[in-house]
């Protein structure tokens, strides 16, 4: 590879990476999540962040930040507390990757300066590089295994770019090992070195050295017979000591590459012919460069966002944020989510999600949807089926906060969900009680079939005439209803009394009940049902009506939607 090309590629990808990082970081200050985020400007958010950073740096808060850095970022304490396997995987990846960067990628600038005798083919570097590579490999495998263990019944939320990035990572690792293995086994590489450092490529002249390198360094000469005499090897060792040893340790310490070299040995001639060293190198480098360029755009940007998020949390332990601070923190959370799915497996409404067939109830899906909405992608074509599922997910959340507690990167998800619900409401997807009550019961009825009847499986009581046939019209239900008692007008209070709802159902006028305020303003206090002298299950019927209203009014409101 020409240095020029290498530089262009390196600097190019570095530039893309940096610009990408800048862009991603900038979203922390301009993406708006939550109604309160609309009231603060980008400038206010920037100022708030800078002021916060400065004030923390020059206060006791710094102690917390440092603590957060070591405990949360470096040690990954939160993950350690929850998932040992994944913690181990993460630590392996982190350590291995750092190792690779230090002793391999940046070897010439770092290790070369620190240790004057640095050579990548010397121990411990050779060993360390292999070790680091293996750590990354094993780490990734562990993380994947960890994810597989917590099935939620839905596919993980995933973007193509993330798959590409994982493929690139694999390519880098595999090509690196292959390249090293090939170099170990390659006679051509051997001759290139002897040409350069001994000044000859004559096989006969190099026989002792070849014998040594074939037996102990794994070079796969195709013209070496069996039965090399020990004397020749000893001679070779001498020569090696003079010419090679300063740069080359025994490759057995590159335990992976050496093993691979042994496997590749029979092919090394052919690979030499095919100039494998060159294209493996290109592959390795370009995979690195592309990965570098893609990094800010993939989920692995979390490697940047997470520490920031954790440090911010560390800085503000009480989580007292101004609205500007909250706005930025939510945007940051969108990036900091590693989509590990730990939240999903603890989600209180997870079983509901499965039963309703709606993954949008799960936190990891919700955070993607929240991000999509913040980036104006969710409703770009109006309220579609996806958006309705998202809305259902948002409003079925019980705010139990388990996702927040479980989040390995400490995101305040509860705050994010609340903000997300606010945004959905503004975008025309408020809670069911809200969108139902946006129209009058009569207005809803006009868009329903007046002959519609309740269906038995979802509304067994409302659909059974026996439910109401005992009613003697005594009005007790209404007389004990706290909601009717406290309604001071029909515009903001209830529109129908419980008895009227029951009567309309008995009269076969379901359509007039579904959109009524009474149905949704019902406090489900069960006073009516408890006090009904005839045992009419008034409140239970109200609950059934809500379900019917949710689906039937939902399909009127959004024709073609999932309801």
């Amino acid at each position, binding site marked *: 590879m020409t240095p020029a090309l290498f530089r262009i590629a390196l600097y190019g990808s570095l530039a893309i990476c940096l610009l990408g990082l800048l862009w991603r970081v900038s979203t922390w200050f301009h993406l708006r999540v939550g109604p309160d985020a609309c009231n603060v400007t980008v400038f206010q958010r920037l100022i708030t962040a800078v002021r916060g950073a400065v004030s923390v740096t020059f206060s006791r808060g710094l102690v917390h930040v440092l603590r957060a850095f070591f405990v949360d970022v470096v040690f990954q304490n939160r993950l350690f507390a929850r998932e040992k396997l994944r913690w181990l995987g993460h630590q392996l990846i982190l350590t291995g990757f750092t190792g690779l960067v230090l002793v391999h990628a940046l070897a010439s600038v770092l290790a070369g300066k620190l240790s004057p005798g640095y050579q990548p083919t010397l121990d411990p570097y050779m060993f360390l590089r292999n070790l680091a590579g293996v750590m990354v490999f094993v780490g990734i495998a562990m993380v994947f295994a960890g994810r597989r263990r917590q099935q939620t019944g839905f596919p993980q939320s995933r973007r193509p770019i993330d798959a590409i990035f994982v493929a690139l990572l694999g390519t880098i690792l595999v090509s690196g090992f292959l390249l090293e293995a090939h170099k170990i086994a390659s006679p051509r590489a051997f001759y290139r070195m002897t040409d350069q450092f001994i000044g000859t490529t004559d096989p006969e002249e190099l026989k002792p050295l070849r014998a040594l390198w074939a037996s102990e360094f794994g070079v796969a000469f195709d013209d070496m017979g069996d039965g090399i005499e020990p004397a020749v090897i000893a001679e070779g060792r001498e020569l090696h000591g003079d010419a090679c040893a300063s740069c080359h340790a025994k490759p057995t310490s590159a335990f992976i590459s050496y093993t691979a070299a042994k496997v590749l040995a029979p092919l090394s001639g052919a690979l030499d012919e095919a100039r494998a060293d060159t294209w493996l190198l290109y592959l390795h480098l370009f995979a690195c460069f592309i990965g570098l360029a893609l990094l800010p755009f993939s989920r692995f940007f979390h490697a940047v966002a997470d520490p920031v998020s954790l440090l911010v949390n560390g800085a503000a332990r009480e989580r007292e944020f101004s609205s500007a601070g909250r706005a930025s923190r939510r945007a940051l959370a969108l990036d900091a989510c590693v989509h590990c799915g730990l939240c999903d497996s603890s*989600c*209180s*409404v*997870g*079983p*509901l999600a499965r*039963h*309703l067939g709606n993954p949008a109830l799960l936190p990891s899906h919700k955070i993607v949807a929240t991000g999509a909405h913040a980036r104006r992608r969710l409703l770009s074509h109006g309220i579609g089926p996806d958006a309705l599922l998202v809305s*259902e997910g948002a409003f*079925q959340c*019980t*705010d*139990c*906060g*388990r996702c*927040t*507690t479980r989040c390995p990167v400490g995101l305040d998800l*509860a705050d994010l969900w609340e903000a997300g619900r606010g945004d959905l409401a503004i975008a025309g997807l408020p*809670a*069911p*009680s*809200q969108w139902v*009550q946006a129209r009058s019961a009569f207005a809803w009825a006009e868009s329903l079939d007046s002959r519609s009847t309740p269906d038995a*499986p*979802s*509304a*067994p009581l409302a659909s059974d005439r026996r439910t109401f046939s005992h009613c003697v019209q005594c009005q007790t239900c209404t007389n004990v209803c*706290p*909601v009717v008692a*406290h*309604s*001071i007008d029909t515009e*903001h*209070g209830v529109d129908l009394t419980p008895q009227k709802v029951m009567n309309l159902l008995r009269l076969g006028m379901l359509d007039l009940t579904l959109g009524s*305020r009474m149905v*949704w*303003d*019902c*406090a*489900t*206090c*069960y*006073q009516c*049902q*408890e006090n009904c002298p005839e045992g009419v*299950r008034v*409140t239970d019927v109200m*609950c*059934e009506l*809500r*379900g019917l209203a*949710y*689906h039937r009014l939902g399909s009127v409101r959004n024709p073609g939607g999932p309801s």
Partner: protein
Amino acid sequence: MKFALFVGCKIPSRLPAYEISTRAVLGRLGVSLVDLDFTCCGYPARNISRDAFVLAAARNLALAERAGLDVLTPCKCCFGNLRHAIRFLGEDEALRSRVEKALATEGLAWSGHTEVHHLLPLLARKVGIDKVTASVRLPQTGMRVAAQYGCHALRPSNVTRFDNPMAPTIFEKLIRATGAVAINWPRRLDCCGDPLHEANGPLSERITLAKLADARQSGATTICTACPHCHLRMDAVLAGSTSASAETGTEIKTLLYPQLLGLAMGLAPEALGM
């Protein structure tokens, strides 16, 4: 006595003190608690799908059954909802078979034998008022306490079997056991307003305010709760309406029953999440 503790969704996130104090007093009374991997009781889904709500509840019951334990919950909504699910499963064969099928996909089953208890009847009946009274070291004499019963525990009484829904006495007995005075207030059985908070905020607030005014007028200094929803709702309205307390000039605060009991037992406020 050993129960699977079902804390539900509200308590861990919004009212951890309730769990802390519940564990503290039950520990003192020799009731041991087991934590299972419970999920939402299903109440929120009741508004959109009967099946989903019953299934969510049944799943939790099945978990308890697998552990061989009855369920104890301090939340009255969870309590009522789990009991409702049992009733619906009992009276609707088709629903039951749909739910059984869905549970089977997770390798779960529920045969119908799990009992669901709420904290107050557990204390009053299983532990016993006498034992509760005996555990009191620092009687809270002078405290004038209004018992907030909470709808979903009290009604429908044939589902909850909590106490006489028209004239319950259980809460007052438990309050008196701590040495405090249980006052009689007309709206003690009324809704706290919480369930319609989202649907109709102003109406919800009127309901809550009427209750608070009533408690004050009746001379209460403390409203004792045993449900996170009631507690949080009244706290929120108390915090938000200075005018309400200005009306009668008396201060009123909320207290969770296990906190009241815990204080009477002589536990440190910190141990009760206070």
